[in-house]
């Protein structure tokens, strides 16, 4: 009973935060609401017995990706136009498409799956560790190489190059940096 109440609260928090992310007109508010949604998902992981995933979610998403997103928001906007910085286009058509998708998903979920399945589990963190280093070792190694490539690639792409030829024509950001 208590478990259901906690689940309902966490789920409502997650959905509310995701809703603010999707509908807010202020991009900074949107970014912080996404932070809330990610924390809520981490809570749901924890409630399903996936403590390892909950911790990874907190470290990678909340600690890493959100900092990146906030940096990108702050670096690509001038403070004065933050309030109009998150315009939507064709909201009606997009709402119809999203609602139709949601309807189909909910129909499939509530018609196709037995309803009395409970999900609480023992922690399976040791099993994840064993499997990552045995069955899923190739994927683990490929992920390591991918992360190295991403590290180098992101630095290369975002690096500040000086182009004397195009310095005068590259928009307002150029003057601000100087």
């Amino acid at each position, binding site marked *: 009973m208590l478990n*259901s109440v906690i689940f309902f609260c966490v*789920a409502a928090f997650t*959905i509310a935060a*995701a*809703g603010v*992310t*999707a509908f807010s007109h202020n*991009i900074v508010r949107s970014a912080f609401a*996404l932070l809330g*949604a*990610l924390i809520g998902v981490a809570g749901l*992981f924890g409630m*399903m017995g*996936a403590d*390892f*995933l909950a911790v*990874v*979610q907190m470290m990678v*998403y909340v600690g890493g*990706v959100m900092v*990146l*997103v906030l*940096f*990108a928001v702050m*670096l*690509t906007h001038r403070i004065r136009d933050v309030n109009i910085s*998150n*315009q939507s*286009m*064709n909201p009606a058509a*997009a*709402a119809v*498409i*999203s*609602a139709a*998708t949601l309807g189909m998903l*909910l129909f499939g979920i*509530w018609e196709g799956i037995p*309803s009395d*399945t*409970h999900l*609480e589990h023992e922690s*399976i963190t040791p*099993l*994840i560790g064993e*499997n990552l280093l045995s069955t*899923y070792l190739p*994927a683990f190694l490929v*992920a390591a190489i*991918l*992360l190295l490539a*991403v*590290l180098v*690639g992101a630095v290369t*792409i*975002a690096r*500040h190059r000086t182009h004397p030829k195009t310095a005068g*024509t*590259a*928009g307002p950001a150029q003057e601000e940096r100087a």
Partner: protein
Amino acid sequence: MTVQSVLTVAAVLFSLGLYCVLTRKNAVSILMGVELILNAANLNFVAFSNFVGPSVAEPEVAGHVFAVMIIVLAAAEAAIALAIILAIFRRMGTVEVDNLNQLRE
């Protein structure tokens, strides 16, 4: 807390992320929508992984490993995408995807 309740939350998250991706003009906001969609997929993986496990003593772990891999890919994708967005902003002075309609300045 049944498998359906978790899947319902994931479906709502997915729809909100889809709406975000479809409507936003700002590239960073579109990326936020993609993150919501990836999180919905992760919730589904974990829910189904627990759902198909043969017993509590011998749980299924594939979905959890998949979710870890998705988190790694999402982090990589976010890093590259934000680097590209920064580079675009430097060159074009905007990150509104409507205005980014040329391959060179």
